[in-house]
């Protein structure tokens, strides 16, 4: 698992993808840190984190698009699958490498907090609540992206599917409002990533929300393993 994770992590940075992802993330988060926090002379970073929600929604498909599609295309999956490594540790290795790159990006907010703390005392507990929320959101989204990447041989298709799903996730809230059937509406808003994530940005650590993201991640990792299993049998 660690072997696969290490190789995958290195390959993010032997191609431009890792650098582009990080650069775009740093620029955008830096911009929002400036425009929502610094410029208003406030120590409240919640606006930054709620803006990061839509940023990572669009960046994560880039991070995950080649994760498994490229293996299939280059036939390197043959090497991985025929080596004495279980399918679970193979997929987890891949997943963790993407999560690691994601975390490298997100970690920059700690720097922002330190910068802020040098001017004014900040509420570290709230800040780490934000950070955990963002990390959990990333966990769920990366699992979804990885699953989509397992479905196809083409990075482009994986990315487009990823964007489509992310867009859908962002539209769930307005959709829930339009639906008249209360059950369906409740169901949809229950699925809303935004609602669950924004409770983190409000400084509320609700365990059920954390569990929701972790469950989504687990379910999609499981699905990814099933995709590989199924491919062997068809």
């Amino acid at each position, binding site marked *: 698992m660690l*072997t*696969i994770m290490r*190789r995958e992590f*290195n*390959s993010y940075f*032997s*191609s431009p993808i890792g650098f582009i992802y990080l650069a775009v993330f740093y620029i955008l988060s830096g911009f929002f840190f400036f425009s929502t926090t610094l410029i208003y002379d406030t120590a409240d970073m919640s606006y930054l984190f709620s803006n990061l929600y839509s940023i990572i929604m669009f960046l994560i498909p880039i991070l995950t698009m080649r994760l498994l599609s490229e293996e299939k295309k*280059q*036939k*390197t*999956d*043959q*090497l*991985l*699958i*025929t*080596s*004495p*490594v*279980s399918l679970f540790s193979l997929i987890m290795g891949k997943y963790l490498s993407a999560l690691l790159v994601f975390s490298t990006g997100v970690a920059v907010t700690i720097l922002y907090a330190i910068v802020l703390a040098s001017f004014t005392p900040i509420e570290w507990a709230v800040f780490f609540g934000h950070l955990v929320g963002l990390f959990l959101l990333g966990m769920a989204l990366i699992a979804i992206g990885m699953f989509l990447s397992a479905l196809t041989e083409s990075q482009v298709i994986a990315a487009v599917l990823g964007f489509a799903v992310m867009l859908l996730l962002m539209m769930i809230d307005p959709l829930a409002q339009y639906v008249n059937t209360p059950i369906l509406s409740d169901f949809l808003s229950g699925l809303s990533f935004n609602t669950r994530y924004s409770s983190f940005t409000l400084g509320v650590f609700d365990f059920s929300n954390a569990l929701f993201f972790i469950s989504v991640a687990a379910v999609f990792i499981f699905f990814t393993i099933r995709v590989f299993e199924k491919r*062997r*049998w*068809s």
Partner: protein
Amino acid sequence: MIEVKNLVKQYGKKRAVDDVTFTVNKGEILGFLGPNGAGKSTTMNIITGYLSATSGTVTINGHEILDDPVNAKKSIGYLPELPPLYLDMTVKDYLDFVYDLNKAKLPRNQHIQEICELVKITDVYNRLIKNLSKGYRQRVGIAQALIGNPEVLILDEPTVGLDPKQIIEIRNLIKELGKKHTVILSSHILSEVQAVCERVIVINNGKLVADDTPDNLSKDMSTDHTLTVRVEGPEDEIYKLLTKIPNMVSVQALGEKENGGVYDFSVEAKKGEDIRREVFKRLAARNWPILSMRTNQLTLEDIFLQLTSEDKSNGGAK
């Protein structure tokens, strides 16, 4: 060592592999022969655990590939049809990665160095795989299969894309490896199998059509008792003379050859009868020189065509 039992792989309505059974013993080099699309690669993919069989079992070293995949896969080194290379890695990083992936417990640097020397890739050791030529890539693929010193090597068309000199090198290498490893080698090039393998399995349309040594295959099907003779002299009289030889079944005149006055005859005796000496004596007595005489032994090519084109699953061989 490797036991394949009643292997079936169904793709929709097509049976890619149809009830294939064979065993490979320790230290054997088995050739896996068949035309394109016969099911060679599919069978190999099943043996290595990349695909699952619709039914049937594969046991490697006593480990069932589905029940105990990790242990079964540990003893296999696999070179698929397309070498599974990460193009963005250097040869060194790639082999290191494969070493870790196989959880090999040998002195790392020494082991990798030995393999590189064996397949002659030391000079590209620090280069990116993406910049290597096809021949080098193929050799890195072979190196990859050798890492961890697996007891079983499964090589899917290992000499594809190599130049003739490299092909000979790789064949010798495989022969060398066959002394310590059990090797399954697939190919559609017959001379290759003939040169390297001790045993040949011929597969066509997913079915096993033959399983024997290359020599036996050609012996069983050969037509030792038929000769082609080239004689200088009058055609009609030679023809008459030949038909009078005892045990003769048929004589066929093949027409005038070379620059005239020379004729070819196809001669068939009863099965098991050697009439070459008699032919020589009688023609010599009449002073008609024999310019050439050869038995019509089938090459592996002929056998192969015979086995795969006529749809008789017991085509002479087992």
